[in-house]
């Protein structure tokens, strides 16, 4: 009880420590890498969303980021298409 009311310290790193408590360091690394990868996915979706015909952000600024995500774009687009195929099949 007393523990729950205590404010969580350390932001995301604090949360992270709670989750990974008890994991082997190998598992922890994998967890971090995986979380990071799904965030990358989200990040590209937000910044480059108009690739899918959804203009989410001011294009002038998303172009500015384009060079840095160029290698990810192809892989990302394939993944988006794949996920869409799956939902199409399910729906």
């Amino acid at each position, binding site marked *: 009880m007393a523990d729950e009311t205590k404010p969580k310290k350390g*932001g*995301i*790193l604090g949360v*992270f420590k709670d989750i990974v408590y008890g994991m082997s*360091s190998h598992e*922890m*690394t994998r967890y*971090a*890498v995986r*979380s*990071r990868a799904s*965030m*990358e996915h*989200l*990040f590209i979706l*937000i*910044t*480059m969303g*108009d*690739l899918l015909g959804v*203009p989410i*952000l*001011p*294009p*002038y*600024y*998303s*172009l*500015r*980021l*384009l*060079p*840095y*995500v*160029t*290698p990810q*774009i*192809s892989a990302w*687009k394939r993944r988006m298409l794949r996920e869409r195929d799956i939902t199409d099949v399910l729906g």
Partner: protein
Amino acid sequence: MSLRTVFESQPDRRYIMFGGKGGLGKTTLSATCAFWLASQGKRVLLFSVDPQASLSDIFQQDIFGKGPVPIMRNLWAQEVDADRRIRDYQEEIRKKILDMYGFDRVPEEIDNYIAAASAEPAMEESAIFDAVVDIVVQGDYDYYMYDLVPLGHALYYLSMAKVYDEWINKITRLREEMRQYDQVAATMRREKTMEEDKILGELLYIKERINASSQILTDRRRTAFFFVLVPEEMIILDTRKAAELFSKFDVPISGYVVNRVLPPDLGKGQIPEYLRNRIAMQQKYMRDIEASFGAQILAHVPEMERDITGLGMIERLAKRLFEEVSAR
């Protein structure tokens, strides 16, 4: 208060905007104030993002897409060529991709993306937004006068600043979180150094610029927004509505300027019937304006005998506005 006392008593308000419906005299008044401030020894940049190139008209000089062009002592005017800016920018992005990855051509998918993004109307809007940021953040003028496009656009621009502001703050936060995960992974792997996150660097740069620009627009200490109106029924109604909307966006409205006022004395002379009627109508609307905006009216600008173009004409109007006792 008069326009002059606003400028003299609030010297920190260095970002000046005249808003109002199309064709009411925003450019004319911006140029006239810019002229007067410059003649008082202030360094003034009057700039426009309107592809209609109205500053070139009023100064009778082609300044479109040429950067800040000196007009007279202490006064510069600038018209941004948004199309060219977008083209140059696309080239810059392509070149950056080639350099970063040692490609000899930009991958087709990426090139298509650049082309598609640039064809959107939002591209022009955001490019213009960025051009304005460019101009106002450099900070080496005493006054920045925005020659705005009509009201709707001005409001759109202001709301864009708000939206961009929120957007960039969120994205930057997300990126910073991603960075923390990298940090964890790197620590686990016992890696000492982590490659710097270039994207985060870019985002922070964009964030700083957008934040700076949107802060300026709503900063009561630094910004003055004047409404231009004329004594006509619809315009008075529209101005009232617009003023309400603008205050919702926290735009610091400094007062109203009534343009194109016919000299009341004119009514006494031998004049055609229709003109006499117009003067009578105007007098009625002037009373409406007085009732609506009262003490917030800063100037009555007389209807001049011809269009205001060229420095001579601007100077005459500036004298009427700032030197002679204003009409009220």
